[in-house]
């Protein structure tokens, strides 16, 4: 097998605190996994907030350097990417989608600017018609069109619309890997389904692998091929989605699973009342 992405014993520490109470925070500990280049898959990272998911994603994207361990993309150490050209090639192949679309776009810049500049930068397009066409095509993938987006600012769109634009932007360069950090936490159930269905389609038709970071266990169960569960920087469970999510063995994964509220008013409200009584 040729590895698309390979993490070997990756660690990330942060120094936190002031001069007197300085200490080390182990945000990510001994994380290892490999994605196969020939078998595109949806690889899901689940964990509560602060468990190290975003830090892991940032290292994969080359935005953060590991304290120890290596990350390789198509055989190449991500930390060794130096030249502008190498960086550009890497970024075209590995695209991010972030959690909070309100933060991903600068409020003073029109949204089409992000899409156009991605098309120009990664596809080398110069001709306006070609740029428009590439942008429109990506937007159509997510149920929008350039006509609807042109000239508009982020505050003029709803949270869900922005997130679809973020997915469209990531699709423009034709990536091999998409690192999606909680991409659906801001969108409604129906759109959530259409975004994860879209991931599935990207995997099956375009052969894109997806690292899907989420705390939404129901969509994780629904689309993942493999899952890892992180807890305080450690991977506490890893395996096929049905095994890990359907029948979790680690105590923490079980807690996570049983914390999912069912979409049933009788059961869900009883759970909350019980919680309330407990405090």
């Amino acid at each position, binding site marked *: 097998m040729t590895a698309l992405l390979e993490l070997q014993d990756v660690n990330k520490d942060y120094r936190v605190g002031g001069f007197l109470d300085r200490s080390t925070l182990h945000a990510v500990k001994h994380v290892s996994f490999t994605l196969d280049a020939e078998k595109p898959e949806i690889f899901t990272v689940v964990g509560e*907030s602060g468990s190290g998911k975003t830090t892991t994603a940032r290292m994969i994207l080359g935005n953060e350097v590991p304290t120890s361990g290596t990350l390789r993309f198509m055989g190449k150490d991500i930390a060794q990417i130096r030249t502008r050209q190498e960086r550009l090639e890497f970024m075209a192949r590995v695209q991010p989608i972030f959690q909070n679309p309100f933060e991903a776009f600068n409020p003073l810049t029109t949204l089409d600017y992000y899409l156009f500049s991605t098309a120009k930068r990664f596809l080398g397009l110069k001709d306006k018609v070609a740029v428009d066409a590439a942008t429109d095509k990506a937007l159509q993938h997510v149920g929008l069109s350039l006509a609807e987006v042109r000239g508009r600012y982020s505050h003029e*769109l709803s949270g869900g619309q922005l997130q679809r634009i973020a997915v469209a932007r990531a699709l423009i360069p034709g990536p091999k890997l998409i690192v999606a950090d909680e991409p659906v936490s801001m*969108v409604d159930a129906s759109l959530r389904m259409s975004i994860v269905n879209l991931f599935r389609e990207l995997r099956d038709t375009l052969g894109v692998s997806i690292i899907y970071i989420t*705390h*939404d266990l129901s969509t994780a169960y629904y689309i993942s091929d493999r899952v890892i569960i992180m807890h305080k920087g450690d991977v506490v469970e890893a395996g096929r989605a049905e095994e890990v999510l359907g029948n979790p063995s680690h105590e923490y994964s079980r807690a996570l699973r049983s914390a999912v509220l069912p979409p049933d008013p009788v059961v869900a409200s009883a759970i909350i009342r019980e919680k309330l009584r407990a405090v």
Partner: protein
Amino acid sequence: MLAAVENKSASVEAKPVLRVEGLKAYYQMNYFGVRREVRAVDDVSLTIKRNEIYGIAGESSSGKSSLIKTIAGAITPPLRVVEGSVKFDFGGKELDVYAQRPAMKAARWKHLSYVMQGSMNVLNPVRKVKHAFHDFAFKHMGLSEGEFRARVESHLQRIGLDPRVLESYPHQLSGGMRQRLTIGLATVCEPEFIIADEPTTALDVLVQQDVLALIKGVQQRMGSSIIFVTHDMTVHAAIADRIGIVYAGRLVEEGPTLDVFQRPQHPYTAHLIASLPRIGDTRKRVALGGKPPNLADPPSGCRFHPRCPLAVDKCKSENPALLPRNSGRVACWRAGEVEAA
């Protein structure tokens, strides 16, 4: 004597705290001479009782945030109220939000608080948390610095936060703690009415339950009313007494939570309930066909007709009114004909 007391409380119960009537709020813009109007809130009427938690559900860009922003009196151009009214009843005194702007300003934090979407960002990253409390609440509470600090600390303790968080910077706290803080900010003045936009959306499941219990607990203790927005139906299931379903800027169905889940009357609601993912179920779910409507140019008649499996000719030309039905209200020519999923 007892009966008289009960009677009195019953009449208090019956009087709505919030009355929204025929509310229309549009984003009115001018792009290089081209007028564009987004009808984000289009003829919404609803009432909310004391002690009630009312949840607003609907797909992305249906106008949920616009609606509660308008109710909160927190709109800025290009969003404008075109028609209708929003009236609160605070301790027997009526407050008409768009007729009495100055009174509204004064009421804002004392009687009413509004937690915006993405509000975890209200915490300024370069300032300690205590400053946020000071900025938001100090001048509304009429307390000395010392009393204020003591009040904030005891409030934080009650909602499960160590008062030492006041001395931290936001990035030192977890997402769950930041969300607790936001709720702490919204409730420190013990308002009678709380308006919250997606209060638990960015939280992981473990924290989410705590925050929901926190919201419910604060509401019960203070006897306040809450109107909140989320697209997450499980959150509605967990804490809402009643739910209103918004589609393309209009309220299309409303009713007690259990009834809406078990016997949805509107085809859109039925779809929403049926599409909920459940653990242990990987059947491929069909997303709703077609596109979400464009509110700058909404479909004629019933706005759901291009996507509705039950649509008939009449639906294309005539808009169904929101009418009482069973325990709630519904706007559909074929109300009740949907099979509950």
